[in-house]
């Protein structure tokens, strides 16, 4: 059996003075702490125009006519565009090319993009938008997914009957029979409100029309490659004429992982005006651009044996996708694929529906597709554990996988640190002394979660490498790393520099990184689904090994030894057989360039065939080369007078394979927990008739310092056999456990089960009152 302790070479560290596993400041920290680093909106160029977008005031309406003549005549206006200027539909998925940067026929949500202007000042742009006249024919609109999927006619997209974007039906084993045989069976409906990424940096794009008829686009994107491709399609230009550059990005969390309309609109405006155009969204526009986590209904049924084994799971999930496809089918597939795959469960049925409504499109958000179903699953499992009289932690212990293994739905699990995560948080939190034992009003909750280390299949099915990196070394012995991977704050630049330095046995300061510039760097599929450490990390190892071999060949010749006996560490190339035989890295580089003529090397990563999942419809989403695991204990107090929940402490353990840079791993885990806590207790986009009631940070309340409790992170290292030095995902997997752990803690504290997110004081008070009523009528349960 391959467990972490018998990992192959690529997971082993180079030497005792390894820089892997040591906390490193991020390579771009000096730029960030001095304010000198440039995000897209910090850039300006001579002759730059201000771009602005006219948004729809209607949720669903046909556009009869748009008159732009008055706007065009306004002095200072350099370009006005409508859907007719860029009619090519696009979308992140090949099956979902259903949106245009400016809508062509009708608007489908309040905020939909109708027209855009580029002008010499912001004030003129605002005035120009006012002068555009749009003649709308208002149509009936759908706002509730459960109603929308009953629609007989007047669909949001004519090609999507009953407003159903996509539905999937998966069955493994025999869930009906398993539930019938189970000792304890429960079912419940769970609801999760809609949440937004709320990255601190609003979307911004600067598009520059170059004198040689090329287009250069700086954008706050997680995926320069998708933007590059989409710009080429919509602007009807070859990709070779377009350059996409990602400057510093102020957070993504999925919100910048598909093309946002302004990114294309800026390009089209620049092309038309033959001038640079910058568009930066207001915070309100960011909320309406959205692509966040959808409103989700989860009808979940689960059966437990007397011994606590999960016998069967049946789930029906309806997601409110908003008006366009986006990542929708992927989201609903992730919900099904990762629903049960964290545990050893043989019988699972999943019915997932992605429904269109007249609201902004939802999309990928941290923990993509897994978060709301995990809330339901871990809540219901908690209830079943109480039914069976088994400790909630113990019931998880009795359902663990044994890695390496294949889950019933075809996910290949290569490393599984969940058992260790569970024991670590139980110990650190004092779970055994607290669970069910704290005074009324105070409680502890437990839950687990998991996530992919990148998708094993790209959105466009192909055998392309998911990432490629190049290295070059010149006579000055500077190592330059060219990578398409996108640093968005998660530390991927640092991680890649660290891996290249480790593999070459040199200091990190020797490595210069050129990243995310499509003219200069090879394709990387982007910073989403927690793929970069695993994939770009492995590509960096491959490239650096290749480079090392070239250096060894030349050094061996010079030193008169075998290349195979050479090692690279501490800025020296040393013979393992005879340590007196050695050469400094600088001298070795000169020798190698003299020998080879040039020093360049490449590395790529493609997920192995056996990690890519089954053959059934929808089997492509969920498979990953590796999975992360998390377990959490959360302690809360509930004020039974006000319904207010105070979170005292969160203990989270995360299995990241190997912590290449423990400081950034902890930052990712704590950040995930923090975001989960926001969704658990306070964040919700509130909709009325297609209008967002809270498109501001005053009203959409992300947690501030005073809302955030002590969060402890425990790193668990299962050493994945295929991860770079054994590493896997760290940036998303912990989010999902936080929400049910809060719900379970509230149950432990006051005995009410809240099945709707966010868990507001109002919901808790209503549940407490309902419980009181039930008790006074003689049916109240314990606690």
């Amino acid at each position, binding site marked *: 059996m391959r467990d972490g302790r018998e990992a192959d070479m690529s997971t082993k560290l180079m030497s005792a003075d390894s820089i892997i596993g040591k906390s490193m400041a*991020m390579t771009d920290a000096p730029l960030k702490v001095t*304010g000198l680093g*440039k995000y897209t*909106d910090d850039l300006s160029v001579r002759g730059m125009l201000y771009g602005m977008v006219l948004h729809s005031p209607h949720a669903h309406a046909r556009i009869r006519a748009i008159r732009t003549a008055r706007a065009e005549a306004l002095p200072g206006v350099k370009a006005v565009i409508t859907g007719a200027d860029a009619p090519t539909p696009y979308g992140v998925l090949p099956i979902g090319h259903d949106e245009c940067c400016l809508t062509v026929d009708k608007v489908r949500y309040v905020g939909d993009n109708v027209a855009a202007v580029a002008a010499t000042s912001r004030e003129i742009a605002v005035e120009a938008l006012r002068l555009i006249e749009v003649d709308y024919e208002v149509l009936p609109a759908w706002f509730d997914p459960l109603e929308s999927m009953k629609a007989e006619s007047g669909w949001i997209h004519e090609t999507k009957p009953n407003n159903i974007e996509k539905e999937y039906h998966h069955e493994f084993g025999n869930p009906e029979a398993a539930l019938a045989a189970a000792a304890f069976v429960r079912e419940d409906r769970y609801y999760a409100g809609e949440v937004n990424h709320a990255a*601190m940096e609003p979307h911004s794009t600067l598009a520059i029309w170059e004198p040689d008829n090329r287009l250069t686009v700086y954008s706050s994107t997680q995926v320069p490659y998708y933007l590059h491709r989409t710009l080429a399609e919509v602007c009807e230009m070859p990709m070779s004429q377009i350059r996409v550059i990602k400057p510093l990005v*102020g*957070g993504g969390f999925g919100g910048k992982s598909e093309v946002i309309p302004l990114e294309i609109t800026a390009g089209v405006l620049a092309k038309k005006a033959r001038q640079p155009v910058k568009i930066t969204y*207001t915070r309100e526009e960011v909320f309406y651009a959205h692509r966040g986590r959808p409103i989700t209904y989860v009808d979940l049924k689960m059966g437990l044996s007397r011994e606590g084994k999960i016998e069967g799971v049946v789930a029906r999930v309806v997601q409110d996708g908003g008006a366009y496809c986006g990542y929708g089918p992927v989201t609903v597939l992730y919900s099904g694929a990762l629903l049960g795959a964290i545990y050893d469960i043989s019988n699972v049925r999943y019915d997932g529906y992605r429904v269109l409504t007249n609201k902004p499109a939802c999309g990928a958000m941290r923990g993509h597709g897994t978060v709301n179903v995990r809330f339901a699953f871990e809540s219901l499992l908690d209830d079943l554990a109480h039914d069976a009289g088994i400790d909630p932690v113990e019931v998880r212990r009795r359902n663990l996988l044994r890695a390496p293994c294949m889950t019933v739905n075809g996910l290949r699990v290569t490393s599984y640190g969940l058992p260790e995560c569970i024991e670590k948080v139980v110990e650190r939190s004092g779970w055994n002394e607290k669970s069910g034992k704290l005074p009324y009003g105070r409680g502890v909750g437990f839950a687990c979660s998991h996530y992919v280390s990148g998708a094993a299949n790209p959105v466009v099915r192909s055998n392309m490498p998911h990432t490629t990196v190049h290295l070059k070394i010149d006579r000055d012995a500077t190592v330059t790393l060219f990578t398409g991977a996108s640093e968005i704050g998660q530390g991927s630049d640092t991680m890649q520099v660290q891996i290249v330095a480790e593999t070459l046995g040199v200091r990190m300061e020797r490595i210069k990184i050129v990243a995310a510039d499509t003219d200069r760097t090879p394709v990387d599929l982007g910073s989403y689904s927690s793929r970069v450490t695993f994939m770009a990390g492995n590509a960096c190892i491959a490239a650096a090994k290749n480079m090392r071999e070239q250096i060894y060949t030349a050094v061996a010749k010079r030193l008169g030894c075998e290349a195979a006996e050479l090692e690279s560490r501490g800025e020296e190339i040393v013979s393992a057989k005879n340590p007196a035989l050695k050469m400094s890295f600088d001298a070795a580089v000169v020798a190698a360039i003299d020998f080879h003529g040039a020093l360049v090397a490449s590395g790529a990563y493609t997920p192995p065939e056996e990690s890519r999942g089954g053959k059934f419809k929808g089997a492509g989403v969920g498979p990953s080369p590796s999975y992360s695991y998390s377990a959490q204990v959360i302690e809360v107090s509930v004020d039974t007078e006000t319904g207010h929940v105070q979170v005292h402490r969160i203990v989270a353990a995360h299995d990241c394979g190997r912590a290449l840079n423990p400081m950034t791993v*902890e930052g990712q885990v704590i950040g995930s927990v923090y975001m989960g806590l926001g969704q658990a207790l306070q964040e919700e986009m509130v909709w009325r008739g297609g209008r967002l009631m809270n498109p501001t940070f005053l009203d959409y309340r992300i947690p501030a310092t005073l809302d955030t409790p002590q*969060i402890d992170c425990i790193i668990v290292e299962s050493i994945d056999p295929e991860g770079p030095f054994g590493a896997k995902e760290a940036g998303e997997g912990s989010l999902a456990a936080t929400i049910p752990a809060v719900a379970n803690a509230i149950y432990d504290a006051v005995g009410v089960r809240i099945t709707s997110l966010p868990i507001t004081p109002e919901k808790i008070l209503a549940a407490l009152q309902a419980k009181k009523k039930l008790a006074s009528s003689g049916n109240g349960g314990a606690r």
Partner: protein
Amino acid sequence: MTKELLQLKVNGELREFAAPAHKLLLDVLREDLDLTGTKRGCDDSSCGACAVLVDGVPMLACVAIASCCQDSEITTVEGIAPPGTLDPLQQGWAQEGGSQCGFCTSGFLISAKALLDRNPDPTLDEIRDALSSNFCRCTGYMQIYESVRFAIERGKEKRAAECAMAGKRT
């Protein structure tokens, strides 16, 4: 739009520029003075990314009128340490993971600077309070507290060294 000739004392330098009298301090800093370290993260003075020191007091530049600040000393993130050096807070933010995406960092540094200037050894609760008007979406704040603690420790060491020096002299 009519522009006026305005003067602002920013990071110790007197800067002259022409702008409408009602132009926001944030826009003046970013557009007229090329000090883009100060960020705009929201529309309604709720995120704290645009915090600057006005006469040593943290203020939101997105709701301050530049022409009304002409008698004040303004410090932005670019000015909290001499060029080429880092304030202990900036070192802390880099060393302890206070910055992930970094977009909120300038505002946090300004709030933290104001705190340590008036209270060099704050408790965790005092740090929490002082930073409660700044949002960070990445870190969950724990490493931000570590970053502030780093600077507090540096400050203690510096004061101890100064005391020792003073002791030697006398």
